[in-house]
């Protein structure tokens, strides 16, 4: 039993950046905009957050900087796609490619530096046998991400702004006709998504590793995009999916450490293959996807026509 607790803890830790990013992307997609730039935003946020934390010595400032730079990039994306009507797919790819280059460029001076990992924990609860080390000795951001998940679920299902957001994603022209400012709602959704991806990136470089390595996000931005489909755009299923993927990642590390007779490269393929598998399993039922996917996902809406 004692060997399992650290595994659970590590899985939750590994799932957290996926969940943060996927929750943000979920809100994006609920407004009808798909942002393929998540990988790029996470990378830039990871390096900026790390740099700020190194220079100031304060991790929370690093998180703030990561979220801010994520929002900045998402704002730029919103200007191009929501106002100028540029192709969302192409612009998102541009953002991801730009993020990969820019983060490598910014990060040159920070390669090889590392932050000391801190000791965290929820008072009292962290001393419970088994449950303590498994669940209650995490970085505060892990608990914040859980709160965020619950908030997003509540916001979408039980609040008026959540309903408006969903209506924009389903039928922007109807929302527009009812007097809602579709572009502003999309912008806010994108900013939220960028902020979440920023937090996710910062979590990678500040808590998960904790250091900066070029390309360290390693496809998690894309996996987070796949998670929104996997979750059929429902926040609580995002939580499930994120921890599942965190678990797979940790399992591969653990099998390597145990000296399983499988090459490390083959084990490292698992999360990516699992993503493909999950996409196949979910997407094969076209009706199910059609019922759950925001109806105008990826389509440009021009309120002036």
């Amino acid at each position, binding site marked *: 039993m004692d060997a399992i607790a650290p595994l659970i803890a590590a899985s939750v830790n590994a799932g957290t950046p996926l969940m943060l990013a996927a929750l943000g992307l979920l809100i994006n997609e609920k407004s009808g905009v798909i942002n*393929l730039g998540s990988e*790029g935003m996470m990378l830039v946020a990871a390096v900026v957050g790390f740099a700020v934390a190194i220079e100031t010595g304060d991790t929370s400032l690093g998180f703030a900087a990561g979220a801010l730079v994520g929002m900045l990039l998402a704002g730029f994306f919103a200007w*191009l796609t929501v106002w*100028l*009507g*540029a*192709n969302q*797919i*192409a*612009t998102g*790819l*541009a*953002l991801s*490619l*730009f*993020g*990969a*280059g*820019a983060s*490598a*460029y910014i990060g*040159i001076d920070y390669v090889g530096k590392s932050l000391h990992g801190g000791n965290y924990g929820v008072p009292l609860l962290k001393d419970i046998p088994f449950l303590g080390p498994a669940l209650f000795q995490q970085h505060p951001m892990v608990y914040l991400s859980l709160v965020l998940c619950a908030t997003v679920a509540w916001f979408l299902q039980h609040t008026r702004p959540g309903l408006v957001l969903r209506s924009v994603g389903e039928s922007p022209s109807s929302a527009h006709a009812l007097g809602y400012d579709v572009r502003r709602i999309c912008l806010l959704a994108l900013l939220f998504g960028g902020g979440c991806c920023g937090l996710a990136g910062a979590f990678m470089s500040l808590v998960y590793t904790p250091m900066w390595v*070029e390309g360290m996000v*390693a*496809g998690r931005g*894309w*996996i987070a*995009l*796949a998670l929104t*489909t996997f979750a059929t755009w429902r926040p609580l299923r995002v939580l499930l999916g994120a921890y599942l993927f965190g678990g797979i990642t940790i399992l591969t590390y653990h099998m390597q450490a145990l000296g399983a007779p499988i*090459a490390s*490269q*083959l084990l*490292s*393929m698992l999360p*990516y*293959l699992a*993503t*493909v598998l999950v*996409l*196949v399993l979910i*997407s*094969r039922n*076209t009706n199910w*996807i059609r019922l759950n996917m925001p109806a105008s996902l990826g389509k440009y809406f021009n309120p002036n026509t």
Partner: protein
Amino acid sequence: MAWISPLLAIVLTALCGVVLFGAVGKDPLSSLAVFFYEPIRDLRGWSEVGVKMAPLVLISVGLAMCFRANIFNIGAEGQFVLGAIAAGAVALYLDDGTNGGFWLISVALVAGTLGGMAWAAITAWLRDRYNANEILVSLMLVYVAELLLSYLVHGVLMDPDGMGFPQSKLFSEGFLLPVVLPNTRLHIGVVLALAASILAWLYMSKSFSGFKLQVGGMAPRAARYAGFSARRSLWISMTVSGALAGLAGACEVMGPIGQLTPSISPGYGFAAIIVAFVGRLHPVGVIFSSFIMALFYIGGELSQSRLGMPNAITGVFQGILLFSLLACDVFIRYKLAWRK
């Protein structure tokens, strides 16, 4: 009109470069010269540009076809790697140190082409059969392909006399692509790239099948009404682009690299996405945009020694170029009007 926006985008990217170099305290003009003049100062420079252009043209010709059909194959990097693996494995298997020549090189190139094609076919099949998003699937397969390459060069394909370095034996002389310009590295791949570009242009503009492909991309409903098969378009565009990316990978390992190593591509598969868009998704247009992208690559390498700037600057410029293009497109498509 459509060609103004790539030109504007290149100018805009250069301006961003001026600002960026100025911001880090370099002389902007001489820095720009490192990117736009130094690579093509002499014949050797031109030949190096050609070496970089060959894979970029091959991949982006295929991607242009895909994007015109509205199939977003983002995983060309993976198909490139698989092509390299297949060609490299076949070359290593056939190579006995003395043989080689036209037929054996052709066999290896075909193997590479088929390797890339098979890798793309996985994405096409999952899309066709299970409706899985081709963007995410093809991208995930990039990571899988890179890990597979790393696995192979650490394992069965590793050079037994290589002192444990994760790389294959060097291919012997008979398995290296012939050089078209004496005393340079410019290999026959560049000729293959030009041929692919012209063939693709003929296919897209002169054949009925190419027409159906484009209708499917521009107006899926019209295509369905006309009875054009969307599945056919998917399979054609994915397999052709995979095959071309695989061929590019094969040429790269049998040309300038000459062996299998864990990192055979400086992101050609991703850069080719930008190249395809900047080339207006036109099979001949991508030759011009590949030229610019090749300058970025060589400029990035030079800027390390000339300017003390990291190689990563290439990636920054790549991203800025695509952003500028997308923004310019909008300003060219629409007229600016002040709100009354």
